[in-house]
């Protein structure tokens, strides 16, 4: 546990190292999640549009 705390402390630079990794993670995750959501939404919109056109 001690060594894990040491790892988290990053030799006193934890307030720089971890935010850097955190921000990178969030930005990279958004680039995956957003296109997946857009694709789902687009397919839903197209299906709805064609259904209305048929009626």
């Amino acid at each position: 546990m001690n060594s894990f705390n040491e790892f988290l402390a990053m030799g006193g630079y934890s307030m720089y190292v971890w935010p850097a990794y955190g921000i990178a993670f969030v930005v990279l995750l958004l680039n995956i999640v957003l296109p997946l959501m857009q694709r789902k939404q687009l397919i839903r919109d197209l299906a709805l549009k064609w259904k209305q056109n048929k009626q």
Partner: protein
Amino acid sequence: MSIIPAPLLRFYHRMASPPHFYNFADKILPWLVVIFILLAVSGLYMGLYLAPTDYQQGDSYRIIYIHVPAAWMSLFVYVVMAISGAIGLIWRLKIADVVAISSAPIGASFTLIALVTGSLWGKPMWGTWWVWDARLTSELILLFLYLGIISLYGAIEDKRTGSRAISILALVGVVNIPIIHYSVEWWNTLHQGATVAKMDKPSIHIDMLIPLLLMATAFKFYYGIAMLLVAKVEILKREKNSQWVQKLVEEANE
């Protein structure tokens, strides 16, 4: 034509067709994800845990494992975007246009990450979050180029016209790429010089170099994954009136 092998030519023609490209993306995406996870996990473990502490910078240097790969990718993605934009301009290849515009948000993200992590690294090492030196300023201009390309494309209704416009803008902006790379040599900057990509041997310890190269390769695969996901949406938007998209939508709603 004879200098290009026939299978390669067939592959090229198939890839030029949107439904084939769409299916191809679906097929290779799982593989890219698996390779990316393996590279990223081993790179992070080696970089954050196994690699030794730097004798000058302490553990703050560990930001290098995202900062440098992100900065490399910010240039790499830009070059890919400009080249595919040029291919789209010259040969009117739809897929090249799709790859160009789909690369822009990912390139912008890598640039943003490089700038933010650089700032978080600069504060403890240089004593400042930001300085208007050549490397940082040219990288900031790169971010504006990406954002300009994204908003220009968004502002033009017709996608083909939009693609032509952004390809030209991307090609003009290529001039910034060597400026970023050589800025640390041409100007007297606060940013350190190259330690890996230089003519001489890399001046970085092998235990630090290996995780760096692992992360750089992981980021390449990440780019492949994210770009294909954006490209799939872009293809659906462009081809929404075609039969194969109608079939795909119907199958998705069954």
